[in-house]
Each structure stands twice: as structure tokens, then as C-alpha cells.
């Protein structure tokens, strides 16, 4: 008996891990995110990079956003081959959320999209195009091929940038126009020099359902803002939604991991039922008058308990970690403005095209004399006025 107590004490001590210094959550995504990246679990780093990057973009801290997106992309583009955390997550006794988070395809696609905006902002439209192509690839393994690589804005911008770089972007533009479900992208002028990216509405929300929360689902799609308007010195650009991220999240179809989680759920259910049956049968047998039957009954109860333990330890829960500050709708406007300072007013509109109060954002830009694109990113949650 004593050895068992000592063993338990030794294990209890052994289980005590070194914890990072206590951190009071501030509610500020950047502060909390940077702490989590530094001290939190490695498996969640990409998730925090995503969140911090987007929060930084909305504050106009584009260099900070770049650092975080680069870190995230370096991880999500190198996921080939053996991955210990992924292997464990496929096991019966580790939850899916134990794997390194890289996000669902729509989340990975958005990481590339936002990094692309920053490349274009730095005068590298071809790297923006590269990001768009990688983003489309993220969306290419849908179950139903109708929805494969079907981001309207990504295809459109691929073609538009190619045309501006004196290539032939007609196919990509045609594809975008054919894929358009909400609005068909217009033929923005090739001479445009101010590119305005606008996004709005709350993005998809992940939740788990099923007997053991093994099924990943998405909800959302409700936004008071359904379009936007960019105005400057009498010029008006309609920033209508070209892509809906909830649509993208829900049209991917089944994942390979869903089969793994389904198997885990079957294992959990089967072992639970078998354990219960063994305990009941054992208990009945143990109450008989025969000594051998009593022993066999107790053994059966023990086996049942062990089986129940296995069932209890099985973790089929779907991973619901999510990039929770993503928008719902993606939009874009290209304007042709003369060199000099300009004030862009971005108004967000409801379904009746009324301006939604408190959402209006103002951005000051200076269009350079030299032929160079000015790239603006604004969200309905951006902190403005910003001077770019």
C-alpha cells in the first residue's frame, strides 16, 4: 500500500508543470495575442498571429500586421509530412484541438489575402497576385468541385493585376464574373491608382454539434451592414460584397478529419455501451450463490469499468478554435485620383442603402506624383481617422 501512496505523490509532483507568469486578459487583441504567442501553447500561435495581424491592420499598424502574417504563413505553408501534434489529434485519446492550429481553408485563404494587400501596399502587386493564387489553392479541395477556388474577388484581382502588369488576365476576370453570386465585379479602370479594400460584418462562427460534439459547423451571416460606399471629392465608389466568408466556410464539404472524428465517436459510443453491458452483466453474475460465478462477475464488472474508462478518455470533439475577428463580406473599389492629398469617407450601408450610424470611417491618403498604387484597407471595425 505504501508504495502506491509514494507512487501517487511522485506522480502528483511530476505532473506539476512550469506555468508562465500570470497574465490578466486586457480584452485588447494585440496585447493579449502577443502575450499568448510568447507564453501560450505553441499549437495556438498561428491563431493568435491571425487575430493580431487583422487587429493591427484595422488600426493602421501595417508593419506589425506584416510580421504576424509572415509568421502565420511560414507555418501554414510548411505542413507537409509528419506532424506530431496532428498525429496525436488523430488518436482516440487526444482532442482535435491538440493539433497545431492552421485554420480551415477559408481562414488560411484570408491570411494570404491580407498579406497580399500589404504586398500591394508596398508596391509589389505581383506578390499580391501570388498570395491570391495561394489563397485560391487553399479553397481548392472542396468536396463539391463547384465550390472549388470560387472566391470572386481573388480571381478578379488576379486578372486585374495581371492586366495591369501587361499580361493577359482575361481568363481570371471571366472566371470571377461567372462565379459571382452576389455582385459581378465591374471592369475597374486599368489606370486606377487608389485601391480600396473594404470588409464588413461579423465572420463565420464555428461550433460543434453531434452526440459528442464531433461535427464541426458554422453559423453567422447576420450583419447590419450589407454594402459600403467610398467617396472622395465628388467621386463615389460602390464597395459591394463580392465574397461571403460564411458561404466559403460552409461549402467546403467534409474534411478527412471529420471521418477521424466520426470513428472516434463510434469508438466512444461502442466502448460506453459495452462497458455498461459488462457492468450490468457482471453485477448480476456476482450476486449468484456460486463462488466462481461471483469471481467471474466481479472480473466482468472490472472489465466493464476499464472499458468505460477508455470510453470516457476518447475525445471526438471537433476543433472549434477560430479566427474570430474575420469579416463576413469582402469588397474592393479601384479609383483614379490625381496626385495630392485626399480624404476618403467610407460609409457602411444597410439593406435599404441607409448609412449605418457610427460605422463611417475616414482615411487620409496622399497620392504620389510617381505612378505608384495607393492601397487602402478599411473595415467596419477599423479605428479611424487614419493617415496613410
Amino acid at each position, binding site marked *: 500500500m505504501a508504495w502506491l501512496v509514494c507512487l501517487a505523490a511522485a506522480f502528483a509532483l511530476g505532473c506539476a508543470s512550469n506555468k508562465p507568469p500570470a497574465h490578466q486578459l486586457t480584452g485588447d487583441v494585440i496585447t493579449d495575442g502577443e502575450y499568448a504567442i510568447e507564453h501560450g501553447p505553441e499549437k495556438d500561435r498561428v491563431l493568435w498571429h491571425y487575430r493580431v495581424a487583422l487587429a493591427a491592420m484595422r488600426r493602421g499598424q501595417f508593419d506589425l500586421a506584416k510580421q504576424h502574417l509572415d509568421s502565420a504563413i511560414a507555418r501554414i505553408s510548411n505542413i507537409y509530412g509528419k506532424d506530431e501534434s496532428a498525429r496525436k*489529434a488523430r488518436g482516440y485519446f487526444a482532442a482535435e484541438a491538440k493539433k497545431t492550429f492552421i485554420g480551415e481553408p477559408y481562414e488560411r485563404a484570408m491570411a494570404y489575402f491580407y498579406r497580399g494587400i500589404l504586398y500591394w501596399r508596398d508596391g509589389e502587386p505581383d506578390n499580391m497576385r501570388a498570395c491570391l493564387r495561394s489563397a485560391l489553392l487553399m479553397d481548392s479541395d472542396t468536396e463539391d468541385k463547384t465550390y472549388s477556388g470560387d472566391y470572386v474577388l481573388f480571381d478578379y484581382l488576379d486578372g486585374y493585376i495581371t492586366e495591369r502588369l501587361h499580361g493577359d488576365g482575361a481568363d481570371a476576370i471571366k472566371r470571377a464574373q461567372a462565379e459571382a453570386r452576389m455582385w459581378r465585379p465591374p471592369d475597374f479602370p486599368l489606370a486606377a491608382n487608389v485601391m480600396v479594400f473594404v470588409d464588413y460584418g461579423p465572420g463565420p462562427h464555428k461550433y460543434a454539434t453531434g452526440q459528442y460534439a464531433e461535427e464541426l459547423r458554422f453559423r453567422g451571416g447576420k450583419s447590419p451592414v450589407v454594402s459600403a460606399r467610398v467617396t472622395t471629392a465628388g467621386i463615389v465608389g460602390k464597395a459591394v460584397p463580392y465574397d461571403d466568408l460564411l458561404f466559403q466556410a460552409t461549402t467546403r464539404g467534409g474534411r478527412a478529419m471529420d471521418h477521424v472524428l466520426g470513428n472516434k465517436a463510434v469508438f466512444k459510443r461502442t466502448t460506453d455501451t459495452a462497458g455498461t453491458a459488462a457492468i450490468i452483466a457482471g453485477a448480476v453474475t456476482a450476486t449468484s450463490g456460486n463462488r466462481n460465478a461471483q469471481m467471474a462477475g466481479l472480473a466482468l464488472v472490472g472489465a466493464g469499468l476499464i472499458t468505460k474508462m477508455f470510453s470516457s478518455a476518447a475525445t471526438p470533439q471537433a476543433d472549434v478554435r477560430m479566427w474570430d475577428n474575420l469579416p463576413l463580406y469582402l469588397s474592393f473599389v479601384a479609383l483614379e485620383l490625381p496626385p495630392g492629398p485626399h480624404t476618403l469617407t467610407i460609409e457602411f450601408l444597410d439593406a435599404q442603402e441607409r448609412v449605418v450610424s457610427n460605422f463611417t470611417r475616414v482615411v487620409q491618403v496622399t497620392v504620389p506624383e510617381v505612378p505608384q498604387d495607393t492601397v487602402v484597407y478599411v473595415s467596419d471595425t477599423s479605428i479611424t481617422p487614419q493617415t496613410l
Partner: protein
Amino acid sequence: MKMKILSASLNLAAVAFLVGCASSGVKNPSGVPVTEMKADERGFVAGTGVESQDLVAVTEKMARGILSIQQISAATTPPRVALDPVINETRFPINKDIFLTRIRTQLNSKSQGKVIFLARERMSTLEKERELKRTGQVTSTTDPTVQEFKGADYFLTGKLQGITTKTKEGTSDYVLYSFQLIDVRTSEIIWEDSAEIKKQGLEDAAYR
């Protein structure tokens, strides 16, 4: 009998305890020491994109190619070359300057002066310095009013193009790296070479 059952229960409890303690843990809790690798070596962190070993292999091939052409190796006066940014048509965002920078450094270190590169990306700084000389704010060893900035004989440029395939079997990326030396006077392409690299990989099912 009671003791046997009690003992069995305690043993089971010990097993449960062990199971409870089996945490996911931290991989490499003490970290992994820095591993110095050669730039042309494939590291243990790898994707299907453009990596350092590709850069080294491609730029060395291009530098050798440029040195071997008649217009460079047999030129009486070393030709002057300016760099024109590489065009990236792949799906991989890259630092485009890095290819031309490496070709330039390879040529500068190995050509023994057979080719001279123009520092066009420093033009604004050079112009400022010339202006300081012209206005007499700094000294000058030559007449600063004389135009001495050299024009290019050739432009060195390139293009990266790619084909990507993604199926349930994995992702395959083919990248074609092509570089050209263009005569600025005649627009003739006097040299061109290419290198191609294909990579494939399949991510864990947990990510599919």
C-alpha cells in the same frame, strides 16, 4: 477476498492516475539547438515553395551561364549591366530582388571584372551626392558638372512561373525560373537560361 478486490481496485486507480497524468505535453520542452545548415541544403522545415536551396542552385547555374557567353567573356571593355526586377507569376510571394542580388554577387566575385553592375537602386542617393558636389557643399576630385553616371549595355531580368496541382494525393508545385540578358540598344535577348524545380507533399489528414 475483500483484500483482493481492494488491491485490484487500487491498482486500477493507479492505472487511471497514470492515464490522467499523460498530458499532451510540450514537444521539445528544452528547445532545439540552432542547427547551422548550408544554404543549398534542404532543411527539416520544408514546403513546396521557393526555398534557399532552390535560390542557390538556380542563381549559380545562371551566373555560370552568363560568364560563358561571348559578349561577356570576350568583351574588350567590360559590359555594364543593370538589374530589372524579376516578375513573379507563381503562387509564392517572394523577395524578388534576392535572385538578382545573388546572381550579381556571384558574377562580381567570380568574373574578375569581366562584367560591371550599375547601382541603379541607389540612384537617388547618388544624385543627392552629385548635387552636393555641384553646389560646392562637398569636395569633388573631378568636374561634377560632367555626366559620369553610366548607361547600361544590358539588362538582367527574369521571371518565375509556376504550375500547381492539388489532389487528395497531395500538393505539387512546379516552378520555372527563367533569366534573360537583354541588349538595351537593340532589345535582343543575347542570353537566356532556365531552371525548373518540382516539389510534392501531402499534409497530415488532420489538416485535410
